[in-house]
């Protein structure tokens, strides 16, 4: 799976006296299995870029090709299906459904995909074990620590077997130990299963582990290096 971004631009409030260009004519390619960190100061356009790659925001101009298909022209229905089947999301504040247990949270997207209950249960359990939460599956998010919740979020993101995982500041609320454990898990999944991970972050611990670092400033790519 290849993500190819061409002349991608996002301008907020374009009709106003003070339009804000969050992303400016960006060209970028991300190949299958990459472990990419997009870094930059707050307001540099990292999250906007992730949202457009993940199909939850639309660009003002330009295109995002996923395996040659321009997702910026998909209908809302097609975009929902695209996100459900091909993108895993990890949010800064975990964003688990508070009334569901860890297991049910992981099963949730798979159920939206229409998998059988047994299949959902089996994969969700396997993923929770993989992220080190075996035995915690029946706890609701409020009963888990921040690090544990983020691991559930990782398992949830991976449950539908996505082509890539978008993680927006995934370690921002975690302590050093939880961050290290989470990065271990994601790195291992990246290496073992070849899942593409794209982070937006300014956490140096994440940047240190990334294989590729893209530096973003004022909506422009200022550096793209491989480590």
């Amino acid at each position, binding site marked *: 799976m290849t993500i190819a971004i061409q002349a991608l631009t996002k301008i907020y409030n374009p009709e106003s006296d003070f339009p804000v260009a969050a992303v400016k004519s960006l060209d970028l390619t991300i190949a299958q299995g990459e472990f990419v960190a997009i870094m930059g100061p707050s307001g540099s356009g990292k999250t906007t870029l992730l949202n457009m790659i993940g199909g939850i925001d639309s660009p003002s101009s330009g295109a995002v090709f996923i395996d040659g298909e321009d997702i910026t022209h998909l209908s809302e229905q097609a975009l*929902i299906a695209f*996100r459900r089947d091909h993108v895993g*999301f990890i*949010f800064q504040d975990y*964003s688990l459904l*508070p*009334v*569901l247990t860890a297991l049910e949270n992981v099963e949730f*997207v798979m159920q939206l995909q229409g998998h059988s209950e047994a299949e959902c249960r089996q994969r969700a359990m396997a993923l929770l074990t993989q992220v080190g939460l075996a035995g915690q599956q029946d706890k609701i998010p409020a009963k888990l620590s921040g690090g544990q919740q983020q691991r559930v979020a990782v398992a949830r993101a991976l449950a539908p077997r996505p082509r890539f995982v978008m993680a927006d500041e995934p370690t921002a609320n975690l302590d050093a130990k939880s961050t290290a454990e989470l990065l271990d898990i994601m790195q291992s999944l990246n290496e073992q299963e070849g899942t593409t991970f794209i982070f937006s972050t300014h956490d140096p611990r994440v940047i240190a582990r990334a294989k590729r670092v893209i530096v973003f400033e004022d909506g422009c790519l200022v550096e793209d290096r491989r480590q």
Partner: protein
Amino acid sequence: MLIKLAWRNLWRQKRRTLLTAFALALALFLSLFMRSMQEGSYEHNIDNSARFSTGLIQLQSPEYATTESIEDLLPGDDDFIAPAKALPHISYALPRIESFLLASSEERSKGVLVYGVRPQLESDYSGIEDKLVAGRYLTPGAQQVLLGQGLAEYLKLGVGDELVLYGQGYHGQTAAGVYPIAGILHFPLAQLDNQLVYMPLSAAQGLFSTGKQVTAWVLHSDNLDEVAPLTERLSALYGDRVKVRDWQSLAPEMAQQIALDRAGGLFMICLLYLIVGFALFATILMMTLERRREFGVMLATGMARLTLLRLVMFESLLIAALGTALGLGVSGVVIGYFYYHPISLTGETARMMLEMGWEPVMPMKVSLALVRNQVIIILSLMALCLIYPLWRTQHLVVVAALKGGDDDQG
């Protein structure tokens, strides 16, 4: 999964959910109680009033409704009424002659309303025999009369005296006769007490020279709700040769009074539901607005917008179901109790009702239609309250919702 999610979401704000459900339950209980008591009283009054005078349904000659003339008659034989009596829910069929005559004693005269009735049948139906204050009740086939007490006093007549009746009979013949007074009746309504004369049907047919004919067949149904369908069936059965009139047509003042009273009650119920509707609306709106970010996450991770709308609807439906179940449970117990133990009236009202021969109670009506209507109102209220929250959810912008900001797509 969706129902499980909806159910658990309800209990995230347990107090709010319970308060809303209780408010709905209270509104349902109050409206059901009020409606059951209203309709129960109406039925009680209509039934009593019908038994006392017009009956629930009357078969008349097509012209009689406007002329009220002894010229416009119907056959009074059993063959004529047999098809009507064969219909389900017809519990009584009484032939009557009803006409105005002049009544005289030695000293005074007065216009009176003469009822020719089958004594035993009439007594079974209207309990007229219980209103006897002097003498004895009518004997079938006898040439005798019963008088209202006020009339008897006016004419200065008593039991055993003779009453002269004079007027016009069928086909212009003279209706005249002298009848011994078998008994005196007391009616609490002066209008009736001062003008009613009862006599056996055969005597009245002889007096008016109607042969076997009658002015009306009075029919009664064991269920008031069956009156309308029975009226239609009887009209179809007898065609143009008979005018079928229900109690609304026979007692329009009473029908209007009930309609007015019912409208007043419904207005009160509307006010009640309006208040509860605001509470329900606030709950549903809060349930959606405070979870914009959560909805954004659901949409981002691939939940279809329609599925999200269904989730919101399920949650609202569950609150409504909870309130309805609670309300129906309480209503069932309370209304059930008062159905078997009707509220007794006391004081002047009770005394007047007893004099009329009516039981002084306010009975409850137990009806599936009443329950169904209230449930429909609650579901409609819920649907109304859902419109705006659903619109907001439908227009939720995922990116804005994830930021927890304004979700209006504009």
